[in-house]
Every structure is written in structure tokens, then in C-alpha cells.
């Protein structure tokens, strides 16, 4: 069977993904008009904040033939073929129209001038970004969901931004008048101009023929060099009419409950489809349509039921949510003008059945109460609003918890019980709940907690505490030894799990050299020898080379040391040099030479700051806008030696070309014309993650203070061996932002002081070691023959350097 899909957006992508996952054996061809594969349109705005196209793009299942930049212009139902603008003819057995919508541009004079845009595709955003570079102000026509999102984007591009909305208040489709007023307060507080009840008379051009402003119906002119139309969308049904398929009076390709058009060989899904008189403009129902159509193509009998149009979103930091109906016999409203919260519930005349609700500023009731729409309320409406934060309402089993993917609480519970799931990631993988807009994730967490499967936080058999709890115990009680900690708060004598954790906590809090006294026995092998163990029991040596900057003289020293001790030498992925193959008894001798030449420990062995990579930056590079190397060196010197839950990596790029790959780092810095953008939570490794923009255009001083706090908050609260990427996902970017940027926990002064203590107390670990005979006594292969090298270590040569001789495993095991 040949399935041909027209359009490659989220709906089309879900359709072929579902077919592939369910073992469809025919041929799948997708014809998409955009020049790139389907991407997450819901997250479109994050592209302007720096997310890459690759990051946003959905994976394309194997076997799907994708023709991009290929617009379908006609359907021949007789011969079962579609034709594209470039003359390609594609025969089908089953045709699926997933053509989405296009933005509606109201017919106002001047609407076609240069400087007018819509907000739907990556190409649109590229064009807006380019035009904004030369602009100072912008205006968005339309104050709905997408309009406000576009306005936020313009603001993010540095423009003075206005929103013009024809309706009486902002987001008239999602909130009522009271909610609109509270929302307006939030938006204006962010510095945006809001004009409601305002029609557009015309867009006027300047002397250069480009847009110069927008004239409102009342005659007032809003100055703007960029105009974005976001006045609603229209279904792209233009292929249907000429092919003789039924189109609704207000647009949309009419389909039945199985997503089939009047022609049984043709389906329509997503925003272009008109089901039961309704067009959908949210991704959730569109994805369900894709799954229904896929099931039908495979011979199933799935049906699409009227979808829940509930929405919850966060616009410019303001939560807005709407669920169920927007009116009822009775309503209860909670308003807090100080914090800008507006919550309203609509209920039946006996005040028992929940009909719907609207929230602005705090959408907690959305999470807790939405599943009760159409059911008896779990309490008195007013009290439910007041206590929504801790509402412990038991959801019924058949309540839909994820509306994007139509997953009920029952299904989530079953997956938890049957597959022994212990976290949200497992639920996502097992049920798809939480994988689209993410707004149901808090509910998923609650269900996990209710099911009592909260993963044990105990570190190991010796401590029932999590790392974060131990950190607080050590910090608050001023514990300085493992013995004291395990005697008072643990059991037994520790193990390879808890000892390095406690070693790291003691080190983070500044308890002297890591090989001092009892601390030495806690250290992992690498820390114990201040070097990384290799497969044959030898060690590697990595001197710190801050920012990757090194003088020729120092390079020569490294070369001489490597040559004299016969070490294998390699440039690392961290912009420094690793010397391999040193025996324990050679380490102090090697380091003596390095320390004398001014080198310090690079902490390649520690869960500690590794490197701050840099690009050459404005000093040399013709594109650079700031001194990337200078900043990288100072950051590396500031945080060197800081012990953390896992290793910490950083990088600084001198401009947005990002040659230092800062967005793959725990904290990465990218220079802007005005200062520095800070990105956090990046990771290479097992689970790569691009860092999130944390704060923009910071001065160097602001940047350092922000990193200080971010890092210290991580050091205090992360789990053992949890990189900042996983930690950030767990804490939530918003929460960490509030703690670090707004001091929501009131701990910033404490974090600052802790970092200051670290910076002041830093001393080179290797220098201290070679100057202390007690510490040096451990650097021997044999306690009874300190000068004897380990005879089991042998090398052969490869490409002019040494290489360990590997002992075959069979020989070892026997």
C-alpha cells in the first residue's frame, strides 16, 4: 500500500511515526512545502532564544520518503495521483491531507509592505530576526495566544513592542474579561504597550518604502518598523475544493469520526480538518487525529471524539489556563491584585458539578481541578481555589490527565504498577503522557507520589539520606569527619558509594586538602592519587591550562616532561593535554617538574570543575564581540578545585557562532554586543542536552555572580553523580531562575559567601601533596619495595608512542 501524506508538520509527523511504530509495511511518502523536515511548532519561539533547528526537528522514521520544498498543487482522485508545484507526480492508494493552517492577514491597507510578517514557520522567524536587527520598535496585530507569544519574541529581539487587539481584552478566547484585565497588568509590567478594543486602519510606510508605523482605527499612530500579523489562522483547505471534497462554510476539510473525507481513500488530519463542525488550533487534538487516521489505515476502527480544548500556557512568565466551559449557572472567583492572580470556576446551579475554569497568574487549579470537569467537585468551590496548591484531590481512574495524548490516570497507574516505573521519564516512555506540551507533568508527579513509588532517596545501605540532605546535615551541623557523620546519622562503615559523596561534600565546604587525615580514606581511587587510573593500573596526568591558552614555554615543559618519563601524549577534547602511562611512584616526580614550571592540578580526576573552554574571541577573531579567552581564564581560575556532585564543564564563545560549544556545557557563556548570555544545563556524554538560556546581556560582574549562585545551588541540592542537565530538569528551569535571579529562597547571600570561601581557600592540590612527606608515602607501587616498579605493567609502541600491553581477559580469569 502506498500512503502519501501532504504537509510535514507535527500532525503529519505523528501520523508516519505511529504507522512505523505499529509495523506498517507499505510505502510512506511525505510531501512537505517547507524546506525542512517537521519541527515542534509549539516550541517555535525557543528558536529565537537560541534553540537550534536540529533540536526542534522531529525524528523521521526509517523508510519514510520525504520530499521537502515540495508543495502539492492538485489531487487527481480518478487516477489517484497528486501533483506538486515542480511537476512531480506521486501516485497513492491512501492520501492524507495534513496541511495545517496559515496565519490570517486582515485586509488592511499597507499589509503587504516590506516589514510586515506572520509568525508560523522558522523562515518567518528568520525574516523577523533579520528585520529586527535594524529596527527599534515593533507591533503585533492580535492579542491572542499566538499574538502575545510573537510580542514576547519581538521584545526578546530588543524591540519596544506594542500589541493591538480588536477584542475588548487580551486572549479573549481563553480568558474572560476579569482575567484579561489581570493579564494586561502582567504584560504591561513587562514594558509592552497594550491596545485593546483597537482596530487597525492602515499600515504606513516611511520614505524608504518600508513599514514605519500602524495607524489605529481611532487615528493614533503606533511607531513600528516591524509588524507581525497574528490575527488568527485559517485552515489550509485549498486542495480540497477543486478535488471535489467537502469544505466547511468557514473553511476546513470535512471529515468523519475516522478522519475520512467523502472519498474513502482520502483522510484529513490536524488543523486543516473540520470534525463535527469544529476546527482545532491546538496540537493535542491534532495528534489524536493522526493516531486515529493511522489506526484506520491499518484497518482499525478508532474514532475521534470531540476534544478537550483546555489550554495551559506560560506567556512571558505568566501562567494562563482555561478548561471546560467558560460560563455556568454559578461562578466563584478568587483574585489577588497584589500578586496578579485571577482564578475563576464555573459550576452548575447546585454548585456541585464543575463546568470549567479560567486562571491567570497561577494555574494550579488547572492541574488539580481540570480532570473533574463534568463531575462532582471534590470540595466546596471557594475552598478548592484557596487550597489548590495543596489540593490532594483524588482523581478518578478515567480522568484524562494528559490531554495532548489522551492518556487517563488509569493508564498511567497501570503502567506504573505493571512496568515498575519510578519516574516521570518512565511514564513518558511508557504512555506518551507528558511528551507534547508538558503541562500535565506536575499531575504525573502527583500520581507517582500517590502510587507510593517515590524512588528511595537512600544513598546506600549506610545512609537513608539523599546527597542533598547529607549536604545540609554536614553544613548545618558543622560535621567535619566521615566517622562523626556515619556514627550520628548512618550505619556501618560506609562503602564505595557514600564515601566519595561525603568526601565531595566535605571538600565543597572547604575542609582542607582532600588527602588530609581521615578524608584520604574516603576518596575515590582517582582522587586518592590525584590522577586518573587507566586500564593497566597506570595513571594519566592533566595539568590545568585555563581557557586552553598556553605559552610556548609551557608547551615545551609539557613536552619535555612527557619525553623524560616516556608518557603517551594527547590533546584532549577539553582543550588541554593529557599525559598517559605514569606509574604511581612516578606521579610525584612528574608533578614536581610541572609545579616548578607553574602548572597546577587540572582536576581531571575529580568530580570538580574540569575546563572552561574558549574560542579565540574578539582579540583575534574578526567576528568576536567580547574577550572570550580572558573571561574563560578568569572563570576557570575562579571555580578551579570546586568539588561538586558531578564534574562541571564550561565554555565561553566570543560571538553567536559559538565555536567553543558553550551550549553543551554545564554553564556556557556566549558573548553579545551588550555583554554575555549565560546558558545552563548543557551536556554532552550519555544524554546530550543543549543548555537553556538562563539570563541575557549580563555584565561580567552580573555574570560571575549568577554563575556563583547557580553552581553553589547545584552543589547543595543535586543528587550524587547528577550533572546539571538532569538536575535542572528535576528542579525546573523556572525554579532555579527564581532562586538564583530573584533569591526566592533567601539563600543567595549564603551561596555567595560559600563561593567566596571556596575562592579564598583554593590551593593547588598537587603542590600541597609534593610538599608533604606524609601524603607522598602513598605514591608507591609496593609498601615493601617503594623503588620497584610494578612488573605487571608493560608497554608496546604504536605511532611512535607507548601503549599499554593488554592482558587477555581469558588469561586473567583462569
Amino acid at each position, binding site marked *: 500500500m502506498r500512503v502519501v501524506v501532504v504537509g510535514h508538520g507535527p500532525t503529519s509527523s505523528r501520523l508516519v511515526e505511529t504507522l512505523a511504530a505499529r509495523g506498517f509495511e507499505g510505502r510512506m511518502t511525505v510531501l512537505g512545502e517547507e524546506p525542512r523536515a517537521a519541527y515542534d511548532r509549539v516550541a517555535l519561539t525557543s528558536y529565537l532564544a537560541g534553540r537550534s533547528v536540529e533540536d526542534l526537528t522531529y525524528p523521521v522514521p526509517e523508510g519514510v520518503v520525504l520530499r521537502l520544498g515540495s508543495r502539492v498543487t492538485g489531487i487527481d482522485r480518478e487516477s489517484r495521483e497528486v501533483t506538486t508545484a515542480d511537476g512531480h507526480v506521486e501516485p497513492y492508494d491512501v492520501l492524507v491531507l495534513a496541511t495545517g493552517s496559515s496565519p490570517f492577514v486582515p485586509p488592511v491597507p499597507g499589509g503587504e509592505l516590506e516589514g510586515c510578517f506572520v509568525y508560523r514557520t522558522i523562515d518567518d522567524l528568520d525574516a523577523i530576526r533579520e528585520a529586527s536587527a535594524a529596527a527599534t520598535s515593533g507591533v503585533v496585530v492580535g492579542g491572542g495566544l499566538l499574538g502575545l507569544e510573537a510580542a514576547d519574541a519581538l521584545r526578546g529581539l530588543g524591540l519596544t513592542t506594542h500589541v493591538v487587539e480588536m477584542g475588548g481584552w487580551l486572549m479573549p478566547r481563553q480568558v474572560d474579561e476579569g482575567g484579561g484585565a489581570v493579564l494586561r497588568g502582567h504584560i504591561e509590567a513587562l514594558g509592552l504597550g497594550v491596545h485593546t478594543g483597537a482596530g487597525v486602519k492602515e499600515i504606513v510606510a516611511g520614505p524608504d518604502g518600508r513599514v514605519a508605523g500602524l495607524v489605529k482605527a481611532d487615528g493614533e499612530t503606533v511607531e513600528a518598523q516591524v509588524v507581525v500579523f497574528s490575527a488568527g489562522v485559517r485552515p489550509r483547505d485549498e486542495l480540497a475544493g477543486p478535488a471535489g471534497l467537502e469544505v466547511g462554510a468557514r473553511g476546513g476539510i470535512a471529515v468523519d469520526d475516522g478522519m475520512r473525507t467523502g472519498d474513502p481513500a482520502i483522510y484529513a488530519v490536524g488543523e486543516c480538518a473540520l470534525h463535527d463542525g469544529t476546527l482545532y488550533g491546538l496540537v493535542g487534538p491534532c495528534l489524536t487525529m493522526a493516531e486515529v487516521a493511522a489506526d484506520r489505515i491499518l484497518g482499525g476502527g478508532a474514532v475521534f471524539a470531540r476534544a478537550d480544548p483546555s489550554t495551559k500556557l506560560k506567556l512571558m512568565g505568566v501562567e494562563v489556563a482555561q478548561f471546560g466551559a467558560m460560563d455556568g449557572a454559578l461562578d466563584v472567583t478568587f483574585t489577588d491584585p497584589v500578586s496578579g492572580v485571577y482564578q475563576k470556576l464555573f459550576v452548575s446551579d447546585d454548585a456541585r458539578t464543575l463546568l470549567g475554569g479560567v486562571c491567570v497568574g497561577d494555574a494550579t487549579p488547572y492541574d488539580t481541578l481540570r480532570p473533574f470537569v463534568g463531575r462532582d467537585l471534590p470540595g466546596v468551590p471557594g475552598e478548592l481555589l484557596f487550597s489548590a496548591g495543596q489540593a490532594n484531590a483524588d482523581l478518578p481512574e478515567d480522568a484524562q490527565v494528559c490531554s495532548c495524548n489522551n492518556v487517563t490516570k488509569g493508564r498511567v497507574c497501570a503502567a506504573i504498577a505493571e512496568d515498575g516505573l519510578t519516574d516521570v521519564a518512565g511514564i513518558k516512555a511508557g504512555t506518551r503522557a507528558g511528551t507534547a506540551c508538558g503541562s500535565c507533568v506536575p499531575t504525573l508527579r502527583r500520581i507517582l507520589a500517590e502510587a507510593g513509588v517515590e524512588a528511595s532517596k537512600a544513598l546506600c545501605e549506610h545512609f537513608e539520606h539523599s546527597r542533598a540532605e547529607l549536604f545540609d546535615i554536614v553544613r548545618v551541623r558543622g560535621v567535619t569527619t566521615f566517622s562523626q557523620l556515619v556514627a550520628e546519622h548512618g550505619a556501618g562503615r560506609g562503602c564505595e558509594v557514600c564515601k566519595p559523596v561525603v568526601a565531595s561534600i566535605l571538600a565543597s565546604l572547604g575542609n582542607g586538602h582532600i588527602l588530609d587525615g581521615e578524608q584520604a580514606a574516603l576518596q575515590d581511587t582517582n582522587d586518592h592519587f590525584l590522577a586518573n587510573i587507566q586500564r593497566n593500573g597506570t595513571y594519566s596526568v592533566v595539568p590545568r591550562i585555563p581557557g586552553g591558552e598556553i605559552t610556548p614555554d609551557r608547551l615545551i615543559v609539557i613536552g619535555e616532561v612527557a619525553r623524560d618519563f616516556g608518557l603517551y601524549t594527547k590533546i584532549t577534547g577539553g582543550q588541554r593535554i593529557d599525559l598517559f602511562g605514569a606509574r604511581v611512584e612516578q606521579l610525584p616526580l612528574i608533578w614536581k617538574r610541572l609545579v616548578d614550571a607553574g602548572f597546577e592540578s587540572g582536576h581531571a580526576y575529580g568530580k570538580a570543575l574540569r575546563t572552561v573552554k574558549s574560542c579565540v574571541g574578539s582579540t583575534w577573531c574578526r567576528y568576536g564581540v567580547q574577550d572570550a579567552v580572558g573571561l574563560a581564564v578568569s572563570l576557570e581560575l575562579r571555580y578551579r578545585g570546586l568539588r561538586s556532585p558531578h564534574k562541571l564543564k564550561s565554555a565561553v564563545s566570543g560571538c553567536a557562532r559559538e565555536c567553543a560549544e558553550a551550549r553543551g556545557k554545564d554553564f556556557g557563556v556566549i558573548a553579545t554586543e551588550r555583554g554575555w548570555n549565560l546558558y545552563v544545563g548543557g551536556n554532552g556524554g550519555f544524554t546530550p542536552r543543549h543548555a537553556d538560556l538562563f539570563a541575557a546581556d549580563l555584565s561580567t560582574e552580573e555574570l560571575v555572580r549568577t554563575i556563583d549562585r547557580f553552581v553553589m545551588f547545584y552543589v547543595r541540592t543535586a543528587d550524587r553523580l547528577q550533572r546539571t542537565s538532569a538536575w535542572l530538569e528535576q528542579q525546573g528551569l523556572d525554579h532555579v531562575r527564581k532562586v538564583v535571579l530573584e533569591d526566592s529562597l533567601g539563600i543567595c547571600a549564603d551561596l555567595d559567601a560559600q563561593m567566596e570561601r571556596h575562592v579564598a581557600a583554593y590551593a593547588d592540590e598537587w603542590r600541597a601533596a609534593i610538599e608533604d612527606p606524609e601524603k*607522598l608515602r602513598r605514591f608507591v607501587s609496593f609498601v615493601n*619495595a617503594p623503588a620497584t616498579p610494578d612488573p605487571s605493567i608493560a608497554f608496546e609502541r604504536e605511532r611512535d608512542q607507548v601503549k599499554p600491553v593488554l592482558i587477555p581477559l581469558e588469561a586473567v580469569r583462569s
Partner: protein
Amino acid sequence: MVFSPMRIPREDVRATGWTPVCAYADLLPERGVCALVGRSQIALFRTFEGRLFAVGNHDPFSGAQVLSRGIVGTRAGEPTVASPMHKQVFSLATGVCMDDPSAAVPTYPVRVAHGTVEVGVG
């Protein structure tokens, strides 16, 4: 840089059956050292309470002579060492790998005589 070597002549192995290897004070609590006795590498450990254990230094999983550098601890009360290479845990009392009982390392008698640690290899 100062090392305080305690050279022990190898002939001792045969002579007594007990080989002196180092001073008891050379062993740090909950840390190991390695002694070379003939061609055998012996990992010696002193627990928190002061008991001594001796096992082979050879890590059967990686093939490297490294067990003396592992972290010492307890599992359900039994003294253990974790291989520094890939963290398999061995019982210091029996030498059996507690994560994979099909693997084990040899154990050796060990005692302290007049402040000197001696291993029963010979």
C-alpha cells in the same frame, strides 16, 4: 621528597613462611597498600577497628594489579573493598566477589608481630 622505605629481603618468604612487609603504623585505617612477595602482589587492608586483611592485588575483572587502591567499606557488616577499575565489591574475609560470586580473589593469612605486619605467603 622523602620516602621511608622498609626493605624486606625476599629470602624471608621461605625461611619462616611468614613474610614481614611493613610496620603496622604504615597502614592507614580503611585504606590499602600493596606488598610484593616473590612474584605475588598482595593487597593489605586495615579496617576502621584495626583488623588486617590480605587478598590478591589482581582484579579478576580488569586484569590489572589494583585492588589495594580500592575503597574499603562494609556490606551488611562484612568488610569489603571495591575495585578501583569498575567498582566490583569483594569480601575481604572470603575474597569472593559480592556482585558476581563466580569471581574471587585469593586470601592470605596476615598477622602483626612486634609492630610489624607479616603475611603468610611462602
